[in-house]
């Protein structure tokens, strides 16, 4: 996985992609798995271990907040509240649109399946 991360970072820096090396590396690994060159069983356990401890990996960058303490003055409290509300709107809207599209697709597929049935009965 480190290997793919390096390759991803390298490709990103050469092509100046607006994505990060880690995401490019992930897409590469994804393609390689899809092609069948890497078996799922080789990395499945390691990857789920890494992902179930994702929160550990976020501790150091979060501790970095120590250098931003002076930013928290009266006016910034309002900004922070605004950002929290904005985030929650983002979260809610994404989930709602997602759910709405899921139900829409489900009913759509239902119709598609129903049409050939009607055909066969009429013929």
């Amino acid at each position, binding site marked *: 996985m480190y290997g793919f991360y390096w390759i991803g*970072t390298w490709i990103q820096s050469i092509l100046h992609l607006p994505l990060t090396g880690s995401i490019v*590396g992930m897409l590469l690994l994804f393609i390689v798995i899809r092609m069948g060159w890497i078996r799922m069983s080789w990395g*499945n356990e390691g990857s789920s271990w890494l992902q179930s401890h994702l929160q550990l990996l976020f501790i150091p960058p979060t501790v970095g907040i120590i250098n931003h303490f002076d930013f928290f003055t009266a006016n910034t409290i309002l900004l922070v509240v605004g950002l929290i509300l904005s985030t929650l709107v983002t979260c809610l809207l994404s989930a709602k649109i997602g759910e709405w599209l899921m139900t829409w697709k489900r009913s759509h597929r239902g119709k598609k399946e129903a049409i050939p049935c009607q055909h066969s009965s009429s013929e």
Partner: protein
Amino acid sequence: MSTFIIGIAMIALTVALYIPATHLYQKVKWPILMPVLTSTAVIVVILLIAGIKLDTYMLGGKWIQDLLGPAVVSLAFPLSKHMAVLKRNIIPILGGTFGGSIVGMFTGSSVALLLGYPKDIVIALLPKSVTTPVAIQLADQAGGNASFTSLFVMIAGFSGILFGPLIMKWARVKDNNAYGIGLGAASHALGMARSFEYGENAVALSSVSMIVSAIAGSLFLPLWVWIIYG
């Protein structure tokens, strides 16, 4: 050599706090006691009391942080495993994430503009729902103050994982997969970590919506900056 020993000590400190924090969270399940929050709070207090600089902590901290790259890469495994679910839900993921991203940028920048913040701060907060490494690049390229971006990304991450599930429940979102989309779109990798509680499918969807959110950010941010500042 001494930097190496300090580094090891900082890693040991972090892991030593993380393990009991995880056990505590699994027992009570209060969002406010999420391991990343409690461990960070304790470390910040220890550093402040002991007068240790952030740079010193980061001697070890950066080794842990460096695992984030490979962790994102390793998402390729669950993605392939849940390919069928993803294929079935690609339109909901794209629609939900793009819609959420646009509204997130609009509302976030409106608040900052109303409060009279300067251009570099406004641009720095636009990519708040995008995963940190991408967000920093985006803010930097658009002329924002990138050192604040990581702070704003943190705010979006934590407020999303703390209150996001509550507000989605309140709005009667029923589908576990939709929780995954909402968390990934608004709170990037932290949201993905939280969506473990909604099952493996939700994690897969949330990792895709995190990626889509990064792509949506790359597309809309320059456009939005151009609309505001011309």
